[in-house]
């Protein structure tokens, strides 16, 4: 006689969440192939081609390279000033 642990049955999830009518055992075991993560990503991002190098963030290589120079708060202030200047120019050119 095998010495087995008592079966842990986590079936409450199924009982609580099963809201579809089971027509047949085939329904119960039906699964859907959604494709590769690349295909899913392209579909969600609505783009034609996900860059393979950024796909799933191939381990990003932190080197000594400098990121895009940006300071969030400064750019916002600069952007607002730039936008006001642009709007003034637009107004005067009409």
């Amino acid at each position, binding site marked *: 006689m095998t010495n087995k642990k008592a079966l842990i049955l986590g079936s409450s999830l199924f009982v609580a969440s099963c809201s579809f009518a089971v027509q047949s055992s085939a329904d119960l075991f039906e699964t859907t192939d959604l494709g*590769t993560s690349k295909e899913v990503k392209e579909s969600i991002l609505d783009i034609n081609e996900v860059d393979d190098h950024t796909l799933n963030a191939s381990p990003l290589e932190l080197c000594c390279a400098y990121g895009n*120079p940006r300071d969030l708060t400064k750019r916002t202030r600069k952007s607002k000033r730039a936008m006001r200047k642009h709007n003034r120019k637009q107004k005067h050119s009409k």
Partner: protein
Amino acid sequence: MKSFIELQKQIAEFSKKGIKPSVDFSNANTYRKMVYDNTANALNTTYEMTKLALGDDVWMSLVDEFVRNYHSDEPRYWRMPERLITFEEKANWGAKHEVPWLGESLKFEWKLTELFHAPDDTSSDRDHISIDQPAVFGTAWKLMSFNYPVYKPKWTKLSADKGSYSIILYRDAQTLEVKIEEINPFLSVLVTTLKENPSHSIKEILMEIMGANGLEVNDSVLDSTSKFCNKLLVFGVLK
């Protein structure tokens, strides 16, 4: 003269949190930008789908808070984005900003990255699974259950979409790509219960689950179970 520790503290705190140092460091802004950008770039790349779903403004606000407030103990840069999940949970950020699906979306996207790079599993010497045997699981896969369909394109992000969703992520042994299989709640429970009961046969567990839910076990069900388990063998979920 300030100690070297105090000087390092000042440049580090300025770079991470924007706390103005008492010493005038020339070009200190350069470090602030680099520290911010290196973290932001990693997050932007890992979480492209979540970023799109949140919108730029909300996403940038999340990233900004993470950079300022989270102490990442992860020395591997590529794994650092996982810490955003921990931050979101601790700060209850999604709930506070009325995006209750945020945590699930982050977990889904992170798992795609993590599984893609997961250590290799040993190959199976079986070409068929018998449901009279216990299930033996591989390592390069993950069962994920969600309240929101965060893995689907163009979902509404409204509460009307709230439900019970499950997927299996696995790494294809031939192509090494991560693939996604959507499963129903019953199969999610079956796989979870198989994993939690390694000393019971697949058939025993199936019969217990079906019995607890008032469902009949017949030859058709047994055949379907066998087909499903052999599909999991092909996926590398079972060995």
